[in-house]
């Protein structure tokens, strides 16, 4: 790995007492002095500010058909001013990355995962050439939680009129901001792309509001786990199909078998039959019966058997629920809710109950 990169807010993170760690090639705060637990609860009860500038922002000046050739989702049917969840798939049906893409009239705006940004951009460029413009002069912040709308509206009043998955380019005291009403905590919130040289002033203005606290990567992960939101490199991998990863829902009707624009994306010969016939493995929630967190990588077994039926892909303690939770990829014949499976932690088999995702219902402003 080369030199670690710093976001526009790096100095602010240090001033706020953030504990800086390396993450996907970037130096980012894993937590602030408040600590992961309190940060998590604050984001659920008020509003949390996250620096997500490490994520890749990309403008693509191509038509919908060109993007539909790379993703199993309905791009053509996405109205201007709206955003949708997408997947880049590979020829074997695996997931290269997941992303958000927005229709902004004469172009699409994409936000991709930090760890995959370089590969995604190379992938896009290999198909779309000069139509691809990586955005490097903007920071990306997320403001999430029940008080996010009030806090952001103090700076940009018109965000109140947006609903879940709306996008807008808005004037502000911090220059033109690119706003979407979306996020990664399962609650209402916004992601705001702001000019790099305005990012610190923008963040400080939000943080001056008592309802807003800075939130590190630790709570970002526990918040998304409670919301049952998958993370690439965990639930989704290059070897994991959408159906297996639990994101089959993201594949639009128009692109499925019998749809108006059926197939025509990488791996469709694997992905589409699975949507109809099911996959050998699937992604479920696990509720460990004890208090021990069951984390990423723990093998999962059938009860009282040495048959390994899967693996935990994410796991930890859920602060809003007060108990541990895990997400696991397991054989479909053990995936029914209430099935008891055993997860191995430190050589011990711990019983856990299969449950549907999410662990905590989302509160998006639809």
């Amino acid at each position, binding site marked *: 790995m080369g030199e670690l990169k710093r976001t526009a807010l790096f100095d602010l993170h240090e001033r706020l007492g953030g504990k800086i760690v390396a993450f996907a090639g970037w130096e980012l705060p*894993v*937590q602030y002095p408040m*600590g*992961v*637990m*309190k940060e998590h609860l604050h984001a659920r009860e008020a509003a949390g500010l996250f620096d997500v500038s490490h994520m890749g922002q990309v403008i693509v000046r191509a038509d919908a058909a060109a993007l539909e050739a790379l993703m199993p989702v309905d791009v053509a049917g996405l109205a201007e001013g709206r955003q949708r969840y997408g997947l880049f798939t590979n020829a074997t049906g695996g997931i290269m990355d997941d992303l958000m893409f927005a229709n902004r009239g004469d172009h699409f705006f994409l936000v991709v995962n930090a760890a995959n940004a370089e590969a995604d951009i190379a992938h896009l460029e290999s198909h779309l050439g000069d139509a691809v413009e990586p955005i490097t002069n903007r920071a990306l912040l997320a403001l999430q939680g029940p008080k996010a709308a009030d806090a952001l509206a103090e700076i940009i009043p018109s965000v109140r009129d947006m609903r879940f998955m709306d996008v807008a380019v808005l004037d502000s005291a911090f220059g033109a901001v690119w706003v979407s009403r979306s996020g990664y905590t399962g609650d209402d919130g916004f992601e705001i792309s702001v000019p790099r040289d305005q990012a610190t002033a923008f963040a400080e203005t939000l943080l001056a509001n008592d309802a807003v606290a800075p939130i590190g990567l*630790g709570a970002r992960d*526990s918040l998304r786990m409670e919301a049952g939101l998958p993370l690439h490199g965990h639930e989704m991998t290059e070897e994991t199909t959408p159906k297996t990863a639990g994101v089959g829902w993201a594949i639009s009707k128009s692109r499925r078998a019998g749809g108006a624009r059926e197939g025509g994306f990488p791996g469709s010969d694997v992905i589409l039959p699975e949507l109809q016939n099911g996959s050998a493995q699937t992604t479920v929630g696990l509720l460990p019966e004890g*208090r*021990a*967190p069951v*984390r990423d990588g723990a093998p999962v077994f059938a009860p009282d058997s040495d048959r390994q039926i899967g693996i935990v892909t994410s796991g*930890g*303690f859920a*602060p809003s629920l007060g108990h*541990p939770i895990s997400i696991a990829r397991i054989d479909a014949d053990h995936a029914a809710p209430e099935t008891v499976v055993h997860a191995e932690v*430190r050589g011990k088999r711990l019983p856990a109950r299969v449950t549907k995702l999410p662990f905590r219902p989302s509160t998006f402003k639809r």
Partner: protein
Amino acid sequence: MKYTEEHEWLLDEDGIVTVGITAHAAEQLGDIVFVELPDPETEVSKDDEVVVIESVKAASDILAPVDGEIVEVNEAIVAEPSKINEDPEGEGWFFKIKPADPSDMDDMMDEAAYKAFIG
């Protein structure tokens, strides 16, 4: 009070030594959400992994600071792991051990040395 390089504190009261982790260690670990304690009356050797704690971030092992017998464990922290963060050098103690050879503690750091150790 004596301290180890593993960030444990040891309080010797008439040959029975109470063991916990330092405030510095608790702060570094973050919010602790799970504790697994040994059974009382367990014979342990120095550096045996006797306690497992999990914070919101990761799992850590707590090692036996000396050879000896565990004589009591603090069940209160199993029910309420947050006590370790709230009062690591008091109510958040882990276990009491009867050292096989109390002189094993002689070379451990005192408070001033530990403070210098953590910088």
